[in-house]
């Protein structure tokens, strides 16, 4: 009996401590709600979702690159590059059609920039962090010099109304309208799709295999180069899509936007249980990680704590979470450390 309970608990904890993140979310919701009962409402959920769509799609891309053992810091640059370029194309009348077209074009631009990342990584065999630090600068520089540096706010009505198209709406006691946006469908589909591909296809298992050990994956018959290229392209595509979400939700395109907030998305993904050395993590954990970080910020508003304390709260919770996560490696630290060494030296040689 006791064994059964223990097994159930271990199972709920998840392979990468996703359960712990889920538990943190539940505790936080209960605690904040105890202080302010209006926190327990559909409006909170809807607002939380609204804040999470864009970081979540970015986080999916970051997660994929993290799975193959690389840290991508160029995603925000790709996102705003794609979103702003689409806004410019629309403004110049080169791009007509509906919302679908805009998102497709943005994703396509993102895919091309992701392919550029893949090319540089493959050609020079440099670590992903270094390459994306470089390409991030290149993307932003090219965007601001060649494409434009001014605000675009005359976006077509289909984009303007996009942020306000709801599946369900509720009215909060204070009279504001909060709703579940239509956007939840494509974002949820993306998450499910990535999760299915990672879990049930040869390609997906290959991504985990490459992250677990490149040489091992190669000997097991996976085409390492193709898998890596694929991952960078998909990460770029997701970043482009997220950039378009950003532009359409705020209703204007600012080319100097986004870039500089990379680390918080990476933190969310890592918090969701993905290992920065690759091969570990899940889509579910990533979703929970993003939701937790957004929840913290939202809870601070509810608790009327000045927003200047945002970073302290996030940093403190991150730190607390990491100390808990360390238990996961426990005695195996030394082997873990050795693995890191071989990984990193393998990547730079």
């Amino acid at each position, binding site marked *: 009996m006791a064994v059964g309970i223990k097994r159930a608990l271990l199972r709920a904890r998840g392979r990468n401590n996703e359960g712990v993140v889920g538990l943190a979310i539940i505790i936080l919701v209960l605690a904040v709600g105890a202080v302010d009962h209006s926190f327990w409402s559909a409006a909170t959920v809807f607002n939380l979702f609204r804040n999470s769509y864009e970081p979540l799609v970015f986080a999916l891309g970051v997660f994929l690159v993290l799975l193959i053992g690389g840290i991508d810091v160029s995603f925000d640059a790709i996102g705003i590059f794609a979103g702003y370029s689409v806004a410019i194309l629309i403004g110049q009348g080169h791009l007509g059609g509906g919302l679908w077209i805009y998102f497709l074009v943005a994703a396509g631009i993102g895919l091309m920039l992701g392919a550029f990342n893949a090319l*540089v990584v493959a050609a020079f065999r*440099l670590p992903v962090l*270094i390459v994306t630090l470089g390409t991030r*600068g*290149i*993307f932003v520089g090219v965007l601001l010099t060649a494409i434009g540096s001014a605000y675009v706010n005359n976006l077509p009505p289909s984009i303007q109304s996009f942020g306000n198209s709801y599946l369900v709406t509720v009215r909060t006691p204070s009279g504001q309208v909060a709703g579940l946006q239509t956007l939840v469908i494509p974002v949820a589909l993306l998450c499910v799709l990535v999760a299915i591909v990672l879990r049930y296809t040869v390609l997906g298992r290959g991504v985990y295999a490459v992250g677990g050990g490149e040489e091992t994956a190669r000997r097991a018959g996976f085409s390492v180069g193709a898998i890596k290229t694929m991952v960078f392209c998909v990460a770029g595509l997701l970043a482009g899509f997220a950039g378009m979400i950003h532009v359409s939700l705020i209703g204007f395109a600012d080319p100097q936007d986004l870039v500089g907030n990379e680390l918080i998305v990476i933190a969310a993904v890592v918090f969701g249980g993905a290992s920065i050395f690759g091969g570990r993590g899940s889509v579910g954990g990533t979703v929970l990680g993003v939701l937790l970080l957004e929840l913290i910020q939202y809870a601070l508003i509810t608790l009327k704590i000045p927003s200047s304390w945002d*970073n302290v709260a996030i940093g403190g919770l991150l*730190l607390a979470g*990491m100390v808990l996560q360390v238990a996961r490696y426990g005695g195996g630290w030394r082997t873990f450390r050795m693995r890191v060494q071989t990984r990193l030296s393998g990547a*730079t040689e």
Partner: protein
Amino acid sequence: MKQSLSRFTMALRTEHSAAPVIAATVIVFVLFSLMAPDIFPTQVNMQSIGYQMPETALLGLAVMLSMVVAGIDLSVVAIADLAGVAMVQYYETAGGVDAGFGVIVIGILIALAVGAGCGMINGLLIGRLRITAILATLATMELYGGLAIAWTGGPALLKVPTPIQELGYAAPWGIPVPAVIFVVCAVLVAVLLNASRFGIRSILVGANPRAAELSGVREPRVQLGVYTASGLLSSVAGIIFVGRTASATPDYGASYILLAVVIAVLAGVNPAGGYGTVLGVTLSAFVLSMIQSGFVALNFNQFLYQAAQGGILILVLAIGSLARGDQRWRRYLSPRRRKEGGESHATSPGAEETASVSGPGS
């Protein structure tokens, strides 16, 4: 000439070296001097670089130290801001702009103490609790930066004593004070890294933690020392921030963190640990500052600087990686030639011989 050239390519071929960044420094300097001979290679321009460069170079040194032990310190900018805020908070309560000499010295000591303290916390998290460096410093970056913002509530603190402000613009004998501070710090770090027991231990821990452990190096202590030093350097950068902007801004220089990583990596520092170069970091900070001011001199679009910064990072590292004989890309360009080579080998007389020899035996 030929010999020195071959020595240079040899230097490029060794796994880690500052050679690519030295070459980049010379090329960038000559290039801009030729393109803008009246503006670029002048004393005024070099002076302005001397004011700009030290703060990012100090942060680059701090990141380099953490990379030597195979870690990374993302909290350097946050520590610099927090140290600056702590210093000016003290001045606001003790005299403001007209603070006396004693007060100023105490303020500087407070800033250094904050830097060392924050660094020690990083070192304990990474060395004792065994949290991966990039994650621990990501969290403390939020925490320290957040504390700076929460302490002031957002706005900048302006009551900076005059002598501290002078740090930002004084130039005795034509040499900017920030540059002097930087040179002193750089020499200290170079001595620490290359000529002290602590430095040798750090390099060993970064190069091979297992071997270091077996040789009796206590890794947690090394980590503690390295991150404390990194925090101290960051707080010096924080003092220069305050001097140059005549204020303590809690979220100053948010873009500097990735710049500091770029500086360290461009210098040839291996993020996997075991190699650091003070000269390389100094030169790479210098190269980036030169490009920035060169673009101003040439009236280029300022945004292009960001692209140039990214491009030069990839270019320099790619040249280094190619020079080391890592030429996998050739296979992509000419897969055919490689295949033909393989076939010719198979039909060579030697191959036939071995085939015939092994034939009967099997």
